[in-house]
């Protein structure tokens, strides 16, 4: 079961069982829905940006442990960050999901990842990568909408 332990690290199960930042935000916060049409996972990201800073983020939706933990970890990682920093975190996370064949994260990037590094095990389970990235793609969309 060593493979599975890599996927279901304790941090992930914790974020799955106790997701952070659940809930909704009222407008003017933007609301963006994300779907994984293949498996039915759904996520709704509510994003409040003021003066270039992610002042609040809330999430609703349903999905597997990976998609839920990933979204929870994401919300914790970007809340309070500047939009530029948030985009940088998205970039670092995406690199992580490209696996060891892509550019290895540098120590400083790994530090930036913090708890997110727990998601590194997903790379060994290619079909689950889509579960992990759903929230992040939805966040990108939400950031794009706030800057329109």
């Amino acid at each position, binding site marked *: 079961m060593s493979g599975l332990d890599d996927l279901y690290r304790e941090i992930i199960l914790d974020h799955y069982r106790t997701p952070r930042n659940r809930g909704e935000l009222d407008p003017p916060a933007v609301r963006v829905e994300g779907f994984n049409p293949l498996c039915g*996972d759904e996520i709704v990201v509510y994003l409040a940006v003021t003066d270039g800073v992610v002042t609040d983020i809330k999430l609703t939706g349903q*999905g597997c442990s990976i998609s839920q933990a990933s979204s929870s970890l994401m919300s914790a990682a970007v809340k309070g960050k500047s939009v530029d920093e948030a985009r940088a975190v998205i970039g670092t996370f995406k690199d992580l999901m490209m696996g060891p064949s892509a550019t290895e994260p540098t120590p400083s990037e790994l530090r930036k990842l913090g708890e997110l590094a727990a998601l590194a095990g997903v790379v060994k389970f290619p079909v689950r990568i889509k579960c992990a990235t759903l929230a992040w793609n939805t966040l990108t969309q939400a950031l794009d909408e706030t800057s329109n």
Partner: protein
Amino acid sequence: MSTFDPRLVRGDIAQLKRVVNGYPLTYLDSGATSLPPRAVVEAMDRYYALHHANVHRGVYQTAAEATALYEDARSAVARFLNAPGGASEIIFTKNCTESFNLLARSWGAANLTAGDVVLLTEMEHHANIVPWFQLRDAIGIEVRFIGVTDDFRLDLTNLDELLRGVKLVSVTAMSNVLGTINPIRELADAAHAVGALLAVDGAQSVAHSPTDLVAMDCDFLAFSAHKMLGPTGIGVFWGRQALLDAMPPFLGGGGMIGDVSVNGFTSAPVPARFEAGTPPIAEAVGLGAAVRYLEGLSMAHVAAHEAHLTADALTRLNDRFDGRVRIIGPSTVDRRGGVISFDIEGVHPHDISQVLDQHGVCVRPGHHCAKPLMKRFGLNATARASFGPYSLTSDTDALLDALDDAMTMFGA
């Protein structure tokens, strides 16, 4: 005389000899696709090694052989279904989904106008929903749904009302999520009584119980080879001869024409009219072999075997997990087949499937292309185990042990 023995069937399936993650493969995803026996793959190999040529237009020996093999497959399918008009009612498509698109765009576009109603059910697969929405968006028909009761049956209490204005009822013979087997003959009679036709989605029924088109008295039937021990890349569309004869072509191209000039074209008789381009020849040969294989097992024996497996699995899931594994579907084998969807509080179907994979157990998580049904029951996904003729109660043993592990892991 059938000498049906599931262990012999199992011996014919190469993939079941695989070891995955240290466990022998436990394949419980026949509802998604079935594992072809050696005879099917060998028939296709032999075809490519000896007889491959393009069909219908060749005079030389191998072209004649390829044509004969292709048409033999058509005859085999007609016999397997007890098609009242024989082989010329059998049309080879690429899959069950194309068959429904053919029905909607050929029969549908020619026979329906704005306001006409097509009546589906809430338990249909997207293959029998989306083409009708596409037709609705094109010509303004109404798409209506028969509801599903809390005990996973079609709600036929208001059928008379639902049938008002209906020109076609299109229903699955067996739900690919619930396992529910629908009362096809009853629906055929009800449809015909109001002058409507009945189309049947046989994707989940043809490989699991005998099909008798005369007894069913439906008007159209669609299914895929890959769910009945056959190859990918081929499906079947059956219609009554008189209906097919009156239908305009669907896809245009070689083989479906009478004549072509720079001014226009005329179309060929059925079935050629609906088989544009080079057909799935090797795949038809494989499907023919699958049909013969199933006939050799006898579909009645296959049905009995799967009913036994299903009853055993339902009982044991309930006994062992004491209600923590909730079955999404009828709880007994009364009018239900060997597709078992379930839900475990606190463990998402994806995670169930992932942990089960670690035990070599293959089950499918997701909406199973039946999102309206998922919405009906407030679910996003289920995990689904489904049987085939090669399944054994030992597969259920493996499933139960693996489920135990998943529930422990997630504290459910």
